[in-house]
């Protein structure tokens, strides 16, 4: 089934859907411009703006549901951005509204959580300003009706991410991580930019409607556009080969990791691929590359996750891996879109709940992040334990919880497409079972390995309530979306639907194998980290462990391939500029200066020799005139 037509829209809640973007933007502006005057109530304003945006989102959603299924793609025109090139407008359709609800819903919960988490931070107002800025930019990213508007949001979330990773910028590690995230993302943006050049040159338009409608036509360089869009997606979604920034990004405050680097921003790449699905469906090569990138990343992320002792980095590896699943699904075409987005939404819930849970643990443990110094926290932090546990069960695909439905769908769709991809995804699921169990058991079970001054305690209600709400989503979200193909039907006007939807086969070979592998992984983790002693210092481990600990040598590779040659090139260029180009200019000047220095020696100061040379000159002139004759 092809995506539905797009209809112009005005009036109603959809007509003012720009409020969703404007409100948090206004909040950010007030908080940044207001300065210290807003310190006392700034965080409440931030939460209020995010909630208001959520309310508008829900109303928009309701209004959209009230329209006929084929009528659910509405464009709200805003203003002429670049005359003759870009008209800014918002596209409200099932795909964008799904994201809107996730962003504003989970976003608001994380805003609320942050009131507690950041309560002792002197920069709390600024933090909320940046969070609001992020929400506004992310909403623009998903709501814009054209590639340029999407790109503005795309870079806006990059900026917010930069500011928030570097929120504690007085720590050099945070400042470096922020800079790295921005620059690596810019490499992806380069791809996105060139893709937009191609789109403009081919179609003379950037608007989704006309462009995507014609993407499948002959003579469209769909493969090139698809691969370039993928490069952009890789940057934002931390997919191979642009994955290296995500682990460092954990330098930011934990709510940031939850909102931006787990639930929403990093999934923008999946949004981009699904939104631009028309290009990928017209280019099997690009699709193949997307699935390969997805599978490679889901395995790489899982491997990294198995070796990290820093709880946030282990979760970050897991995020990489889960987004790998989504990208894989997005590369499968219409059959995978619904699963990709559904997994994205459920992942938003369970990963945010786990990150916030990790934050709650850190809050209790004096900001300790090393899991080897945790252990046995289940007894003192009941709520955190329970919510984290539900998230954990959801992500490993415990039957009937969210992750089970969505991840299983992805695996089955991949299996249908190519058994190799499918089985690799199954192995990834097994790894997930191991590393997530490792995190869970090391943190909440086993012996207490706390530092001496640690007095863990449950976090305040303002932090635990968001955890509870998120864990409800992690439990029931998947079933709600997947059972009866509810989400696929809802999404189909926006992204199309496969000829025949995937049936649900709980007892298929891959399904059973997955469950068995997950159980084995979890069991192994329990024997290794739950029951037995966990050493306080990480054991040396085999070269495989080192490989995983060093992020698969991604940083080393970047350093030796790009950074060092880059520094060398920079030094060479500076030298060339000073000595070569400028040297030429200054050399010319020096040459002229030198020769005039020699020439001026003729000026001896003896008036009579001047007179002689004048006479000589006069004689020459007179002689010349005589020679020419006719004087």
């Amino acid at each position, binding site marked *: 089934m092809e995506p539905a037509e797009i209809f112009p829209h005005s009036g109603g809640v959809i007509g003012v859907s720009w409020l969703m973007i404007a409100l948090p933007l206004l909040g950010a502006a007030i908080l940044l411009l207001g300065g210290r005057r807003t310190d006392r109530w700034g965080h409440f304003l931030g939460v209020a703006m995010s909630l208001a945006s959520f309310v508008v989102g829900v109303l928009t959603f309701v209004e959209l549901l009230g329209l006929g299924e084929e009528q659910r793609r509405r464009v709200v025109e805003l203003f002429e951005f670049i005359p003759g090139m870009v008209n800014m407008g918002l596209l409200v359709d099932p795909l964008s509204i799904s994201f809107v609800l996730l962003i504003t819903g989970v976003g608001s919960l994380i805003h609320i959580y942050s009131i507690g988490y950041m309560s002792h931070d002197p920069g709390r107002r600024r933090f909320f300003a940046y969070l609001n800025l992020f929400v506004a930019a992310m909403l623009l990213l998903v709501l814009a009706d054209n590639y340029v508007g999407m790109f503005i949001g795309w870079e806006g979330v990059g900026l917010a991410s930069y500011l928030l990773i570097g929120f504690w910028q007085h720590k050099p590690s945070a400042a470096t991580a922020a800079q790295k995230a921005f620059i690596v993302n810019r490499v992806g943006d380069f791809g996105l930019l060139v893709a937009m050049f191609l789109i403009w040159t081919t179609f003379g338009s950037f608007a989704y409607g006309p462009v995507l409608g014609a993407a499948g036509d002959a003579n469209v360089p769909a493969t090139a556009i698809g691969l370039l869009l993928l490069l952009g997606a890789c940057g934002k979604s931390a997919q191979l080969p642009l994955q290296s920034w995500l682990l460092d990004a954990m330098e930011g405050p934990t709510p940031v990791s939850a909102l931006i680097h787990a639930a929403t921003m990093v999934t923008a790449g999946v949004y981009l691929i699904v939104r631009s699905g028309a290009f990928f469906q017209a280019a099997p090569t690009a699709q193949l590359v997307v699935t390969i990138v997805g599978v490679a990343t889901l395995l790489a992320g899982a491997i990294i996750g198995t070796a990290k002792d820093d709880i946030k980095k282990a979760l970050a590896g897991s995020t990489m891996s889960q987004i790998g699943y989504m990208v894989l699904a997005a590369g499968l075409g219409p059959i995978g879109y619904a699963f990709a987005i559904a997994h994205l939404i459920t992942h938003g819930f369970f990963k945010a709940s786990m990150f916030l849970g990790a934050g709650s643990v850190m809050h209790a443990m004096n900001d300790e992040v090393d899991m080897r110094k945790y252990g046995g926290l289940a007894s003192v932090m009941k709520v955190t334990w329970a919510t984290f546990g539900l998230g954990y069960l959801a992500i490993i695909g415990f039957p009937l919880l969210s992750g089970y439905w969505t991840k299983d769908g992805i695996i089955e769709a991949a299996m249908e497409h190519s058994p190799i991809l499918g089985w690799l995804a199954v192995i990834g699921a097994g790894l997930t079972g191991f590393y997530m169990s490792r995190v869970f058991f090391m943190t909440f079970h086993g012996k207490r390995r706390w530092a001496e001054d640690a007095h863990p305690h449950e976090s305040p209600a303002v932090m635990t309530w968001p955890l509870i709400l998120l864990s409800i989503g992690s439990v029931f979200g998947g079933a709600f979306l997947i059972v009866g193909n509810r989400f696929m039907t809802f999404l189909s006007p926006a992204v199309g639907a496969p000829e025949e939807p995937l049936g649900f086969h709980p007892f298929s070979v891959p399904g059973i194998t997955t469950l068995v592998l997950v159980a084995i992984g979890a069991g192994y983790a329990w024997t290794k980290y739950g029951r037995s002693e966990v050493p306080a210092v990480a054991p040396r481990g085999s070269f495989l462990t080192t490989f995983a600990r060093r992020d698969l040598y991604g940083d080393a590779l970047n350093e030796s391939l790009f950074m060092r040659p880059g520094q060398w090139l920079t030094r060479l260029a500076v030298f060339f500029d000073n000595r070569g180009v400028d040297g030429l200019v200054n050399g010319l000047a020096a040459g002229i200066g030198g020769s005039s220095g020699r020439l*001026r*020696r003729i*000026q*001896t*100061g*003896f*008036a*009579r020799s001047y*007179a*002689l040379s004048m*006479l000589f000159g006069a004689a020459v002139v007179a002689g010349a005139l005589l020679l020419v004759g006719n004087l």
Partner: protein
Amino acid sequence: MTTHYLVLSALLFSIGAVGVLVRRNAIVVFMCVELMLNACNLAFVTFARQHGNLDGQIIAFFVMVVAAAEVVVGLAIIVTIFRTRRSASVDDANLLKY
């Protein structure tokens, strides 16, 4: 008919020029310059006569005015140099060089 005047003018000019080149005393050099100027004046007046118009004579007046001004300034400079350097030789006044 005017050839003699021109020959005289050329002779006077040459004497002046040689004087400027070979003499060192600034006063003498100065007088030689005056000699050259007046040789030119003679030529101008001669040509005016030859062509039957007044252009040359007018120029001659200009030259005289300039010469007078030059005498004033020039002698003042020579006297000043003599005062400071106790010498009227043009070769001793060679500070303006390079």
